[in-house]
């Protein structure tokens, strides 16, 4: 089995998630060794995932946690027992 570039692209996501069978993985790695364009595609897709996982990409507004817990506190005081079947 010799993979074409577009077949490699179809597997990029599963490759990154390590969901491929060893055989397909090996074929892809063989292709990547000799194909600059596919290596670059894989590399840039991985960069996107690194950026996504970066805690600083999405940040909480300043004071968010305090406001959240303050509001919860008020709600809990209204109805102190979530196990209660009465409403």
């Amino acid at each position, binding site marked *: 089995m010799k993979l074409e570039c577009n077949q490699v692209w179809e597997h990029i996501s599963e490759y990154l998630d390590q969901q491929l069978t060893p055989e397909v993985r090996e074929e892809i790695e063989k292709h990547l060794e000799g194909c600059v*364009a596919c290596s670059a595609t894989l590399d840039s897709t991985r960069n996107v995932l690194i950026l996504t996982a970066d805690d600083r990409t999405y940040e909480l507004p300043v004071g968010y946690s305090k406001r959240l817990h303050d*509001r919860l506190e008020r709600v809990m005081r209204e109805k102190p027992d979530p196990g209660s079947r009465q409403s």
Partner: protein
Amino acid sequence: MHEDRQHEAELIRRILAGETDLFHELIRPYEKMVYVTLFTMLRNETEAEDAAQQVMINAFRSLKLFRGESKFSTWLITIAMNEGRQRLRKIKRAAEESLEDTIEEPEGDFTPAFLTDWREIPLEALERKELRQKLRGAVEMLPKIYREVFVLRDLQEMNQEETAAALGITIPAVKVRLHRARIMLQKTLVPYLKENAPARKSFFGRLFQ
């Protein structure tokens, strides 16, 4: 992981038995997850914060309905997505979103950007603030069905099964949508990733051209 789940189950049991203050501790690990999920849906900080508060209140009020069959985080994210969808229907983007809802599999070109002049970018280039901003923008632009899967899988790091359960779709659908989302993001972000890569001017430079 397993211990966390046991600890949570114990917390929930005690909260339901009356120690309601422990609810603060129960949700603390998920504060950001809930906010970010809502932010990617509502695209507005204030609205996302208000919605996140509402989600936690709803979770508190319906905690007795949590059966422990799914993880608490999955249950919470389902509440968050429902809250987000409800709000989307209300706000002015409603028309556009409901249109999106009807398109099950948007047409599109799902081939990645083809790169012949790529050099592996150094990790420090990924440190740039503009790049994170570009990524947020690109995520916003994804069609809803791809955005939801991407947010749960790659941002919230939920596994395939949890994502499928939270969205009510099959695992193969999760895989296909995630793949397409990633490819679309790669395509959008490649120009900025390249721009951010500083030229290598060392005497090795030529090797990378």
